[in-house]
């Protein structure tokens, strides 16, 4: 039987735990001692046997482990899944690009939507601006039209009566209106026709509906004159409800009536035999008063001359 220390030495040799010098020395002993060589071979077979046994033991353990691929590994290895995965990825990328591009297209729409909403919100501001413009335009236009109407009516009245009636006040008014028209002409033509037509406040009907001075309707009506000749040198009259009754000696010399319309009302004067008379409202037949104010007489003469 080999000694235990000899067996330990053989184990160290086969386990590779000897130094090169120890290994060389031991191999010399092996070569010179057949019994030691036989024991070394025997121990080598036992150690290898133990190692193989352990390997078999561990391999049996490993064989019991389930190494079938999970769904992730299956997905990674399956060509079919890879193909579907590729399609899915391509679809996802395509969809992403589509929606990204689509979202870019939507940007202007959103801007438009925002603009619309902003415009809705700013409508009062827009109206306010328009209103300011309208105020500037309406005032002179209204006055202008009213004055023009009055002027036309004065002309028509004068035409009817064939008696030129004009005062410096009415003239001044007309001249002032003309000046205003000239000064506002550029602003008036600033907006286009569409904008004006769209704005109900700017419609011509509104302009036409501008209220006139109260009490002018009756005054603007043509005066009805009824005349009775008499032999008396005095002129008597009645004047109410737009009707003027005259009683005098008009057979030799006709009379003229001067009608002056202004904001303060209507004034009527009568010219006969180079004398001016003032016609006032009077429902009782009375003598027509003669104008004695020299300044007024001069004005009346001037109006008559410029008729």
């Amino acid at each position: 039987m080999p000694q235990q220390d000899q067996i330990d030495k053989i184990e160290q040799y086969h386990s590779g735990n000897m130094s090169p010098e120890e290994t060389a020395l031991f191999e010399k002993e092996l070569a010179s001692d057949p019994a030691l060589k036989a024991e070394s071979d025997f121990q080598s077979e036992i150690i290898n046997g133990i190692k193989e046994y352990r390997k078999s033991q561990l391999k049996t353990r490993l064989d019991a482990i389930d190494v079938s691929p999970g769904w992730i590994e299956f997905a990674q290895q399956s060509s079919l899944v890879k193909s579907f995965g590729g399609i899915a990825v391509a679809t996802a990328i395509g969809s992403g690009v589509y929606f990204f591009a689509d979202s870019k297209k939507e940007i202007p729409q959103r801007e438009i939507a925002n603009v619309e909403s902003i415009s809705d919100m700013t409508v009062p501001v827009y109206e306010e601006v328009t209103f300011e413009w309208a105020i500037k335009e309406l005032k002179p236009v209204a006055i202008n039209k009213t004055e023009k109407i009055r002027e036309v009516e004065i002309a028509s009245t004068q035409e009817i009566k064939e008696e030129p009636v004009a005062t410096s006040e009415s003239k001044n008014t007309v001249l002032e209106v003309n000046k205003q028209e000239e000064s506002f002409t550029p602003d008036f033509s600033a907006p286009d026709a569409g904008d004006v037509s769209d704005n109900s406040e700017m419609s011509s009907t509104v302009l036409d509906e501008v209220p006139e001075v109260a009490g002018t309707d009756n005054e603007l009506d043509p005066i009805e004159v009824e005349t009775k000749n008499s032999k008396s040198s005095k002129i008597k009259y009645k004047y109410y409800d737009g009707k003027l009754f005259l009683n005098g000696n008009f057979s030799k010399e006709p009379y003229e009536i001067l009608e002056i319309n202004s904001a303060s009302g209507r004034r009527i004067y009568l010219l006969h035999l180079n004398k001016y008379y003032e016609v006032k409202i009077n429902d009782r037949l009375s003598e027509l008063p003669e104008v004695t104010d020299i300044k007024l007489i001069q004005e009346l003469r001037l109006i008559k001359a410029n008729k």
Partner: protein
Amino acid sequence: MKDSEILERISRGDEKILDHLYKKYYRMMTKVVLSNSGTEEEAKDVYQEALLAFWQKASSGKLVLTSKISTYLYSICLNQWRKELDRKSRLSSEEVDGEETQGHDAEERLRIVKECIEELGDVCKGVLTYYYFDGLGMQDIAEKMNFANTDTAKTKKYKCKKKLDSLIKSKYTAEDFF
């Protein structure tokens, strides 16, 4: 799990980490063989041999790892499969009767050794396999086998080895190997 932690657990003989590694790298390592005209069974054998070689070196503390574990395992699998392909090519072109006879005797003696180990109790099996294959020290063996101390482990190892030697020698004598 980091490679350093894996190596530390292997050095303590934690066999659960072996299971983890085996499953983790199975497809990657067997692909080496499968993509080089190997079968699934051959691929599994090569991978198991490579993993156990890694385990043996790592558990005995003889491994100085300079790369990732997966890279190390891959290189072992590749070399193992090249050796197997060389062996196959040599077997197909050479016929050596003498080697076949010697191989048969070696296989027979190996079978006898394994039978004798199998006859040992679980404690002796554990102590001997942990010491000779895993290369564990007496401290680790004592911990794994729940021994009182390292001296108990040493005594167990000595007695178990002596018993195995006796069993094998008796078998060899009966089979006329001596």
